[in-house]
């Protein structure tokens, strides 16, 4: 078999360039594709929707900026949905940078809800190390783990925290999670030990590992998986955010990858054919 007949591999630089163009163009010129809402995302929406008004709910920001593209739109959508239902939000973070991510998410959503006040409508408890043990300890006595909020204000001085002692007073718990500690630990500790209602979102790459927890025992009330989950949630609450526009870019990127897979197989087939 002569080497000249063997189809050449596409230079990876061309692959990168084509992918770059494929991602940038839909971001600049949205294509307007519509995402179908999956059952997993609908379950998360239903959990927020069915939780009574003025309930205290908990959102754990268990991620850092690297995964913010996928998880930050989810967080903002959940906050907006919860506030539309007049639910009061307690925020914490099992990841150090989660505190900043929460601050940024609330700063964005507060523009739509200028009347919402810190201490009354939302509280940020800050970051705590310890992962699953922290969740277990919170389930027994929240104040033992978080005696103050992230500003150093004692929880007893915050109107929202009145009567909130442990998970029994929390409507649901959401973990926006990009790894450990995160959603898995909330399932194992908050749900399995304290029977709290747990839901959340993860990066697309981690989502398949969480699907077994969405079961008849309701270990997880649905799951938002990656940018698609975030876009679905935006669609359900009628918001066109960064996830919706990002889905166009992701869709084109996926199509490009599929085309390259086909090209790779054509090349492999030709090589096999030449060898024979």
């Amino acid at each position, binding site marked *: 078999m002569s080497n000249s007949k063997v189809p050449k591999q*596409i230079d*990876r630089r061309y*692959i*990168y360039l084509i*992918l770059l163009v494929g*991602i940038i163009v839909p971001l600049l010129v949205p*294509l307007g*594709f*519509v*995402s*179908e809402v*999956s*059952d997993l995302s609908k379950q998360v929406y239903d959990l927020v929707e069915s939780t009574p008004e003025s309930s205290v709910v908990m959102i754990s920001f268990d991620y*850092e*900026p*690297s995964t*913010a*593209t996928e998880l930050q739109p989810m967080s903002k959508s959940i906050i907006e949905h919860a506030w539309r239902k007049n639910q009061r939000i307690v925020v914490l973070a099992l990841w150090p*940078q989660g*505190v*900043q991510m929460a*601050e*940024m998410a609330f700063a964005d959503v507060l523009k739509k809800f200028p009347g919402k006040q810190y201490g009354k409508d939302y509280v940020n408890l800050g970051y705590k*190390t*310890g*992962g699953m*043990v*922290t969740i*277990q*300890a919170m389930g*027994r006595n929240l104040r033992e*783990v978080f005696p103050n909020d*992230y*500003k*150093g204000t004692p929880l007893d001085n915050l109107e929202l925290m009145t009567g909130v002692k442990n998970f029994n007073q929390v409507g649901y718990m959401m973990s926006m999670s990009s790894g450990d500690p995160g959603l898995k630990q909330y399932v194992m500790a908050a749900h399995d030990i304290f029977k709290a209602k747990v839901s959340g979102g993860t990066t*697309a790459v981690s989502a*398949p*590992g969480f*699907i*077994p927890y969405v079961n008849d025992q309701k270990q997880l009330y649905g799951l938002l998986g*990656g940018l*698609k989950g975030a876009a679905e949630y935006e669609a359900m609450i009628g918001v066109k955010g960064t996830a919706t526009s990002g*889905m*166009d870019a*992701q*869709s*084109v*990127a*996926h*199509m*490009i*990858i*599929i085309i*390259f*897979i086909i*090209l*790779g*197989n054509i090349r*492999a*087939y030709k090589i096999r054919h030449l060898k024979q």
Partner: protein
Amino acid sequence: MKRFVPLLITFIVGIIVLSSEFIPHKPFSSVNEGLENWFLIISGFAIILGQLSLIKVNSMKVADKAENWKFYLAGLIAFAVMLLCGILWGTQDAKGLLGNGDLIIAILGKKPFEYLFSNIYQHLSATMFALLAFFIASAAYRAFIVRSFESTLLMIAAVLVMLGRTSIGTSFTAWLPQQWKFLHLPNIADFIMNYPNNAAQRAIMISAALGIVGSSLRILLGIERSYLGGSD
């Protein structure tokens, strides 16, 4: 003695924590709560230990002029700048040693720590993660090749899930009549995720759990001692 005492502590603490799961009453439950608090305190110190280790390891690389020592130096400088910004002008609502840095806020619009976080760290971090997409595209072209029955299955499943999870893919089969909706790409993707994926994930989880039980027992009984830092 140096090894016996840690092994004894591990055994006793392990047995208490394990027992409290099956006997959730005093004294086990209260001792377990105390141990949890200890764990949280020790975890806090672990962060400081990690930072000290980071400084030590990187400083040694720089001092020894190890390969790529300039990157280690850059890491150290970044660490020091963020640390100083946090200590001097505080983070978020917390004041630093020099107060809030109102003059800097007037120029930058934010506290120095917040400014660096949202304008540098956030974008660098997101960029690193986003680069994965390019590597995946290149790797998919090279790796997703039909070579055997298993690799064909893997490729077909991957393509179907990718199509089912995109808005474009959804539009390909949106025209299907109701009785053929099971062939709608998102439905096929859901099927793959909910049944074959779920079954495999559960098998992995159960296997991993059994592995954890085994290795935990080895640690409790002192058979596994590598966490002590030695080879024996």
